[in-house]
């Protein structure tokens, strides 16, 4: 039965890979609490991950705000609920669209770049050279990168949310004559800590997932330059998928708290 055998092998490979990623994550938690932390490299990575993604995230956030408002506005007019636009847009962006879109962009930009960089370092023996020089490459390369993405992603999400709200305001102002003050009054009247905290918390998990998968794939890259390409590619695919799974879990957990 070759089909069922294939299926068994695929599941085996899936669990095998999941186990390896879990061990890699466990090693991260072991190493992150073991001093000393590579502060200089961590700051450099925060700069690379955070500052160098600002423009991309800002432009995307702005366009998402514009497009979202333009798409939803006619339907809201049909229902006679155009006055609820700022409230609806702010809740959608802060709770869901901002975090997931920013995380997906970062999975593409940062996840692939970490996968390719570490993969290239692996196949050109730079990681071995680091180890031979008495440096723990896991701590220097992996811990700093995962921490940097975990810390920077929530900040990028907050910025993307803010810019997206400005984008949506622009449409509201041009098409509906809504003033800046009125728009943001309505926005802030409808956003509560119950919206902000879960979305910020899940952004930390998104960042961790992107950093973890990028580092795991790069650190374990093999088979020369093809392996580097594969590491970058697979890092994006797996982390994007994982983001949706984490998002689903986050929404389910948040719902439990809302019900309470």
């Amino acid at each position: 039965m070759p089909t069922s055998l294939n299926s068994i092998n695929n599941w085996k490979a899936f669990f095998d890979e999941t186990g390896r990623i879990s061990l890699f994550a466990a090693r991260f938690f072991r190493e992150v609490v073991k001093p000393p932390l590579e502060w200089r490299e961590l700051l450099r990575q925060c700069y690379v991950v955070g500052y160098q993604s600002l423009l991309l995230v800002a432009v995307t956030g702005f366009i998402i705000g514009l497009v979202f408002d333009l798409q939803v506005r006619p339907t809201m007019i049909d229902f006679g609920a155009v006055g609820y636009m700022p409230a609806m847009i702010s809740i959608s962006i802060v709770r869901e669209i901002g975090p997931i879109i920013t995380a997906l962009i970062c999975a593409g930009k940062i996840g692939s770049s970490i996968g390719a960089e570490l993969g290239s370092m692996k196949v050109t023996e730079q990681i071995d050279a680091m180890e031979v020089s008495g440096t723990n490459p896991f701590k220097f390369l992996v811990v700093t990168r995962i921490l940097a993405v975990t810390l920077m992603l929530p900040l990028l999400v907050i910025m993307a949310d803010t810019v997206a709200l400005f984008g949506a305001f622009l449409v509201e102002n041009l098409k509906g004559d809504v003033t800046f003050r009125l728009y943001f009054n309505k926005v802030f009247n409808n956003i509560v800590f119950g919206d902000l905290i879960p979305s910020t918390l899940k952004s930390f998990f998104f960042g961790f997932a992107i950093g973890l998968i990028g580092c795991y794939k790069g650190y374990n890259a093999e088979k020369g330059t093809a392996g580097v390409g594969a590491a970058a590619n697979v890092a994006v695919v797996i982390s994007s998928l994982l983001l949706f799974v984490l998002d689903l879990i986050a929404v389910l957990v948040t719902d439990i708290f809302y019900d309470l």
Partner: protein
Amino acid sequence: MQTRPQIQANPLIFNEKERGAALIAIRDLHKAFGNHHVLNGFHMDLFERENLVIVGKSGSGKSVLLKCIVRLEEYDTGTLTVLGSNISELGQDELDRVRSDVGFLFQGSALYDSMTVRENLQFPLRRHADRMRGENEEKLILSALESVGLAHTLDLMPEELSGGMKRRVALARTLILRPKIILYDEPTSGLDPITSKEIIELIMKVQHQYDTASLIITHDMDCARVISNRMIILVDGINYGEGTYQELAASEDPKIRAFFK
């Protein structure tokens, strides 16, 4: 076809009395990847200030042997002692201390490509700040680069260097901690004859200037002829032949002769 300019062979020939204690001692080393047995009871000693060359066909386990010495690979059975320490029994801190006494020149140079030449040399220095305490970092970097003739490349990125320059910068990075032993993995592979000659001269200069012992893995017999004080021919994971270049070159054994054709 370009031929390599002639260099005088290494004049240092050791006799048993001059050798002293072995810096690296390997006995009955076995290493396999699945069913593929790479090392099958390999043994060797590396003595102070000597250049020991190991030659073997591609895939004969030469690079694996070097990686076992610095524990980048774990061997299966046997004993491997580096500077008096059994390498497989060392904890991480002790291993790092031993590694700081063993320089490793990788086949592809392995320069950190996101760092400048200066930062590449700073990296091991900062990791072992206690070892180089009281020494001026900038002076050490300049002196290491000057010893390989590349002081002007201080602020260049690795991508701006040629293959030969990368190899020399990598050697400077290896030398900066003043190791007692240097492991060279195919130091002349992929280089043109003139650059190969420069690297060979540099390896000999390092041996004399820094009093290091070197273990050189190569399949370049011209390099082996010039550099070696002693040679080991690795066939099927064992020491098939051992002696000076001249002794091995005079051998009638067909497997040894194959290397000298």
